C-alpha cells in the first residue's frame, strides 16, 4: 500500500529525424497522439499508476513543448511534497567532447538517483505507445535470476524493420544479447520475434555503479548504451509485455498507430484499462456537430466544430471542418481548419494548419502528406508545401 520504492528515468533525447517535419520543434515524446494525448503521457501514466513519485527527465533540445505539457507534473501526481520531477538540461551532442559536460551528464543522473533514495529504477523512453504495469514488472524482476529486467513485445517479422533491435533469449529464458530483428530466428510456433522495447528495470545501486564506471572511461557513453552493455555482461530477465504496442520511430509508424486507435478494440484496451492514461487537463467547450455533418469511425477532441464529413480520422481539439469538406484517413492536429468543400485523404496536419476552400489533397497509406505547424494552404499551388516521405 505504501508508495513504491521505485524511481523513473525518461530520456527525451530520442532519434527523431525519421519523423520530420513533425519533430522540427518538438521531441518524439511530445508528438500528439489519438486526438488527446502526447506520447510521453504513456510512460508518465505507467509511472504514476505504479505510485512512483521520483522522475528524472533528460530534456531535449526543444524543451518548450515538454515544459508546456508536463508543467509541475500535477496531472500525473508528480507534484507531491515528496519526490517530483527533476529535469536534466539539454547538452548539445557535440559538446560532450568537453569533459565538464561529460561529468555533468553522469553527475545529473547520480545526484537524482541518490536523492530519490529508491531501491529500484525504471529507465523508459517517451516514444512508445503502451500501457505497462510497472508493479508487475517489479514483481517479475524480484523473482528473476538476473540483476536487470528488460521488456519485450513479440511481433511478426513483417511488422518490424530489419534493423530494429530485438532480444536474443536463451532456452533458459535469459536475455543474453540485443541483435537486429533480422538476425533473430522467429519463434517456431507463433513465428514472432521478441522486440526490444527500450525499457529496463534494475536495482538503483547497480545503475549507480554502472554510471560511475562509465564516468571513468575515456570516451563518452550515453545511458542507453550503458544499459545495452550491462545487459550483455550480466544477462537479463525478459518480461513479455502483451498489450497494445507501437514504437513511434517513423512517420509511417506514427500514422499507423493513430489509425490503429480507430479500431474499437484498441481504443478500449489502451485508453479504458484499469490503468488510466493521464494527460494535461484542458478547459474546452463541447464539440458541436452541425446539422448535416457526417462523422464515422473517428476520434475527436473537444472544442471542434464539424459541419462537413470525417471518416476514419483522428481529430484533435478546436478543429473546424467546414461545410461539405471531407476528411478521410487523416490526422488533424489542434486548431487546424479545413475550408468548405476541401477533400483530404491520407493527410497529416500539424497544429494550426489552415486549408483553404475547395482543395483536394490526397496522400497514400504508405506516404501520407504532412503539413507543418501553422502552415496556410490557401490555393492549389500551396499543396506542394506538403511533405511526403
Amino acid at each position, binding site marked *: 500500500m505504501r508508495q513504491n520504492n521505485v524511481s523513473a528515468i525518461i530520456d527525451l533525447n530520442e532519434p527523431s529525424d525519421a519523423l520530420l517535419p513533425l519533430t522540427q520543434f518538438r521531441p518524439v515524446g511530445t508528438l500528439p497522439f*489519438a*486526438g*488527446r494525448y502526447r506520447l510521453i503521457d504513456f510512460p508518465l501514466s505507467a509511472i504514476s499508476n505504479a505510485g512512483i513519485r521520483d522522475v528524472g527527465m533528460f530534456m531535449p533540445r526543444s524543451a518548450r513543448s515538454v515544459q508546456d505539457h508536463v508543467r509541475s507534473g500535477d*496531472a500525473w501526481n508528480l507534484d507531491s511534497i515528496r519526490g517530483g520531477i527533476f529535469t536534466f538540461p539539454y547538452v548539445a551532442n557535440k559538446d560532450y567532447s568537453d569533459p565538464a559536460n561529460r561529468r555533468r551528464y553522469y553527475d545529473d543522473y547520480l545526484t537524482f538517483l541518490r536523492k530519490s533514495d529508491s531501491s529500484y529504477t525504471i529507465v523508459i523512453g517517451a516514444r512508445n505507445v503502451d500501457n505497462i504495469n510497472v508493479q508487475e514488472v517489479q514483481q517479475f524482476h524480484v523473482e528473476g535470476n538476473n540483476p536487470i529486467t528488460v521488456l519485450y513485445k513479440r511481433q511478426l517479422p513483417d511488422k518490424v524493420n530489419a534493423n530494429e533491435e530485438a532480444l536474443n533469449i536463451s532456452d533458459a529464458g535469459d536475455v543474453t544479447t540485443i541483435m537486429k530483428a533480422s538476425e533473430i530466428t522467429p519463434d517456431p510456433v507463433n513465428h514472432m520475434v521478441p522486440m526490444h522495447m527500450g525499457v529496463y528495470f534494475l536495482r538503483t545501486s547497480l545503475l549507480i555503479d554502472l554510471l560511475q564506471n562509465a564516468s571513468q572511461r575515456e570516451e563518452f557513453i550515453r545511458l542507453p548504451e550503458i544499459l545495452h552493455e550491462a545487459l550483455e555482461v550480466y544477462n537479463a530477465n525478459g518480461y513479455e509485455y502483451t498489450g497494445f504496442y507501437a514504437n513511434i520511430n517513423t512517420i509511417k509508424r506514427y500514422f499507423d498507430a493513430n489509425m490503429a486507435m480507430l479500431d*474499437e478494440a484498441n*481504443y478500449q484496451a489502451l*485508453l*479504458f484499462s484499469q490503468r488510466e*492514461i*493521464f*494527460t*494535461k*487537463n*484542458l*478547459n*474546452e*467547450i*463541447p*464539440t*458541436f*456537430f*452541425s*446539422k*448535416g*455533418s*457526417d*462523422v*464515422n*469511425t*473517428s*476520434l*475527436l*477532441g*473537444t472544442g471542434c466544430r464539424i459541419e462537413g464529413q470525417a471518416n476514419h480520422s*483522428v481529430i484533435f481539439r478546436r478543429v473546424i471542418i467546414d461545410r461539405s469538406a471531407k476528411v478521410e484517413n487523416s490526422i488533424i492536429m489542434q486548431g487546424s481548419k479545413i475550408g468548405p468543400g476541401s477533400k483530404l485523404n491520407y493527410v497529416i496536419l500539424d497544429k494550426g494548419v489552415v486549408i483553404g476552400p475547395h482543395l483536394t489533397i490526397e496522400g497514400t497509406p504508405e506516404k501520407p502528406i504532412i503539413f507543418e505547424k501553422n502552415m496556410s494552404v490557401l490555393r492549389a499551388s500551396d499543396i506542394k508545401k506538403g511533405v511526403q516521405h
Partner: protein
Amino acid sequence: MSTEMLAMILAGGQGSRLGKLTKSTAKPAVPFGGRYRIIDFALSNCFNSGVNTVGVVTQYQPLELNAHIQNGASWGLDEKNAGVTVLQPFASREGEKWFQGTAHAIYQNIDYIDLYQPKYILILSGDHIYKMDYEAMFNYHKAKKAALTVGVLPVSMEEATRFGIMNTDETERIIEFEEKPKKPKSNLASMGIYIFNWPTLKKYLVDSYSTDGKMEDFGKDVIPAYLSHNEPTYAYAFHGYWKDVGTIQSLWQANMEFLEPNNELNIGDREWRIYSKNDALPPMYVTKSAKVNNSMVVDGCYVAGDIEHTILSQNVKVGSGTVIKDSMVMPNAVIGKDVTIDHAIIGERAIIGDGASVIGTEDDIAVVGFQEVLGKEVEDE
C-alpha cells in the same frame, strides 16, 4: 488578509423542483451543457470579474459539490489569502448553526466573512446560467454611493408577474419592491444578485438576531428593511442571457438553447471563458454506425447510435440502433442498444437497458434520475 469585495454564493437550495435530479446532489452541482455544472457560471464570472475570494454556502447533499469545487484551482480561485471556501453548517458553543434562509445563511457565516475584512459583499445564487461582469456592477454601486445594489433583468410585462419587481425613480433608486405583483409597475426583475456595503449589512443582521431574528431572507426581509430605513438602494440592469434553471422544464430549455449555434450566451468566447473541473478523459469515439447531428458531444463519450439535437456529457456511452432526440444526457450515463429517447433528461450514472424507451414531450420532459436503472441490463459489447 483583506479583500475589497468578497462574494458569497448561496448554493444551499434543496432544488426539490428538479425532482429526481437533485435527490442526492445539491442543485448547483447539477450538470449542464455537456461539460459544466450549474455553479461553474457563477464561479467563472467571479474569476473573470476579478473577485478572488468566494464563500459557497451549502447544506444540502454537498458531497458532489465539494468534490467538484475542491480547492477552486479549476476557476483560478486558489490564490493565497483568497480562494474559495465551502461553508457548511456547524456547531459552536452557542449551539448548532443551521441555515434558515438566504440572509440567515450570511449571518451564520459572519466569522468567515470577517476573516477577509471586506468593504463590500456580493451575494450570488448558485443556480443561474449567465455571463456577467460583476466589476461593472461594483463600479455602479460605488458611483451611486449605494448601501445596496440589486441586479435586475428587464423582462416583459407579462413575465413580470412571476418575479420580484423593483420599482425605481428616475435616478434608478429603488423606491418599492413587489413580490410577484399582479399589476406590475415596472419590468425590472430581481436576479437575486446583490452588492451590499458589508458593515451596514452586518449591523442589520446582528441587530436583528440579537432581537427578533426576522432577517431571514434578502427578498422578503432585508430589502424591505433597507427601503423602510431609507438606505440608498439602487437597481443595476443587466442585459444579456440569463436563465434560472430551477425546474426540469427550464433546465431542459436552457440546454436546448445552449445547442443553438448563435446562442446569446456565446460559450465559445475566449475573453470570458466558463471554467469547470476537467478530468483528463479519452477523446470521444464516433463509430461506423453513428449519426450525430445538431448536437454537442464531449470527451470520454462513445457514440454508436443516432444523436439528433441532443447534448451528451462526459463519459456517456450510446449503443448502436439507439436514437436520442431533443435531450440532455448527463455524465457517465450508459445507454444500451436500440433505445429510444426523446425530449428527456437522463441523470448522471443512469443506466438505460437495451430496447428501453424514455419519451417526453416539449411540455412534459421525461426524466431518468441519478443512478437510476431502466429496463434490463446493458449487454456487454
